[in-house]
């Protein structure tokens, strides 16, 4: 019998929990077991998956980004306001925002600041900018964006294809590319990466910029799904993305992350919400129940990790 690699074991729990939840949802609501049903279940998970990858990149360098929710909202506002009428302006603003993220990464590295504090501060900046750009809810999705997010692909719903594509791209980027190895290396042991001749500052800046890039994609995908934006549209994403990374087998320190797991984690979280509402759990209990789902999955992981050791 071949021994499973630690990576595969790490991925087992998220895959299993997603499968169990999916089976439960299908059992509760057989209607969900259809092309349209899968799309409805998962199309809002696509932006969450992108935001989770963004969070994962920051967690990979042992930091935590508390501004993802407001930054995705900001990107969504820019997308909804400028992309249809002045695409160049939109691209310029979003590229500028990515540069700002890279600068934040540099700042955190140079001054050795706690990332939680810096990003928490930045969350107010992004939130304020979002309100400035879109004072009252509105804007619209560019035609091509809406068409992309609502495309009816043959056989497999778009939401599933998009999730797989995100997982594969993120996997190649983080697990296979040189940059990805360096980013995870910083999380594991920054000093040895520096000794090997790398510039830790540059890598950190790259990690933050990549994270911002995925957040921007999340904002755009969100506008494509909802057709318009709101300055507060994605505030939940901060916590959802962190939970998604951890649920997907990532760890807060040590550069131990799993892109495929993160996407599965995001899908699981989305599905947990639907599952609870199909169960008709009163809203007062839903937050608690969602927490319980998280704790159960994490508890399982802990058990398995002991076995692994």
């Amino acid at each position, binding site marked *: 019998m071949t021994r499973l690699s630690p990576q595969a074991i790490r991925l087992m729990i998220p895959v299993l929990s997603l499968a169990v939840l999916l089976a439960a949802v299908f059992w509760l*609501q057989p*209607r*969900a077991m259809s092309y*349209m*049903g899968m799309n*409805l*279940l998962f*199309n*809002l998970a696509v932006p969450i998956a992108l935001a989770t990858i963004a969070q994962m990149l920051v967690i990979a360098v042992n930091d935590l980004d508390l501004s993802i929710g407001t930054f995705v909202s900001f990107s969504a506002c820019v997308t909804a306001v400028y992309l249809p009428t002045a695409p160049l302006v939109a691209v310029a603003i979003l590229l500028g925002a990515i540069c700002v993220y890279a600068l934040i990464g540099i700042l955190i590295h140079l001054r050795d600041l706690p990332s939680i504090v810096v990003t928490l501060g930045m969350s107010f900046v992004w939130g304020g900018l979002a309100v400035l750009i879109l004072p*009252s*809810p*509105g*804007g619209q999705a560019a035609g091509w964006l809406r068409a992309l997010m609502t495309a009816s692909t043959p056989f497999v719903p778009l939401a599933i294809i998009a999730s797989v594509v995100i997982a594969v791209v993120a996997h190649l980027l983080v697990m296979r590319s040189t940059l990805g190895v360096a980013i995870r290396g910083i999380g594991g042991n920054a000093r040895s990466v520096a000794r090997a001749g790398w510039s830790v500052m540059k890598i950190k800046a790259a990690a933050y910029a990549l994270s911002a890039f995925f957040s921007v994609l999340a904002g755009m995908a*969100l506008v494509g*799904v*909802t*057709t*318009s*934006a*709101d300055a*507060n*549209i*994605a*505030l*939940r*994403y901060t916590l959802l993305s962190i939970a998604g990374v951890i649920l997907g087998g990532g760890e807060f320190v040590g550069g131990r992350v799993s892109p495929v797991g993160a996407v599965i984690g995001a899908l699981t979280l*989305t599905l947990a*919400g*639907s599952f609870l*509402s*199909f169960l*008709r759990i009163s*809203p*007062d209990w*839903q*937050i608690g129940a*969602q927490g319980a789902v998280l704790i159960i999955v994490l508890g399982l992981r802990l058990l398995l990790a002991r076995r692994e050791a």
Partner: protein
Amino acid sequence: MRIRSMLAASAAIFACAFSPLTAHADTAGKKIALSNNYAGNSWRQAMLTSWDKVTKEAVKAGVVASADAFTTAENQATEQAAQIQNMILQGYDAIVLNAASPTALNGAVKAACDAGIVVVSFDGIVNEPCAWRIAVDFKEMGRSQVEYLSKRLPKGGNLLEVRGLAGVFVDDEISAGIHEGVKQFPQFKIVGSVHGDWAQDVAQRAVAGILPSLPDIAAVVTQGGDGYGAAQAFEAAKRPTPVIIMGNREDELQWWKKQKDASGYETMSVSIAPGVSTLAFWVAQQILDGKQVKKDLTVPFLRIDQATLEENLKTTQKGGVANVEYSQADAQKVIAEAK
């Protein structure tokens, strides 16, 4: 053959006898869901209670098969969008919606419409064209106050305006309506304007602050939740109490009742009843029943006058807002008026 015709005849008699009950048999198998984004204040609580009460009776009477209420745990548009998509999967025929955002739910609302589901939004409305909207005409709410005053005080006089929370859409709308009313009835003049933030204590402080600089005030126009505070400020300044328009809050009605009993004080009170959720329910039922309904409807105000004060006060909970639950006939009236 004879038996069959007899059967048919008796069936016809049955149908006639029970027609008042089964006139809406078309919707007897329909399921309606309420998607609500927030339940954290007394208005929303009253809204959910009204929904529960009215829909329970409707389900019992066989008008609809079920009418479940869902509230999102966090007041977030993405969460509510997911909730609506779940409702599509659960096979509801209509979704009654109090939305977290007028725009951010459009994708989910469109998906519901495409699945053949009737979406009726109220209070927090959505601007997706395929949905119905039951909106509040805040402008008219402001204008009607001045219209009432023009009958009470034909000679006119000075008005003090107590506004709501600065920068909020509702405040701008009501105030615009009041100014429109003043233009329509030029015997009135707004001599002062303060922000009361829809809270009695804030209103009292604001009115007390501006009162010394004002001439005689004939009436106070308000936005609701501020009339009692304004009255207290006038009392504290030992100035004669003007006609203060109230906003259906329990403390305001109590104060009015006390004044009415003591000195025959006369005014009126106007606001939106939380029971508007039940109006939306009946509108959804009417649409499912195949009625032609315009996409934009207006919520009637709940207006309390001198004669109806006691009866409304009796049904208003302590610290709450006067409420009214709407019936199917009310919904039909609103629909007919919009045509």
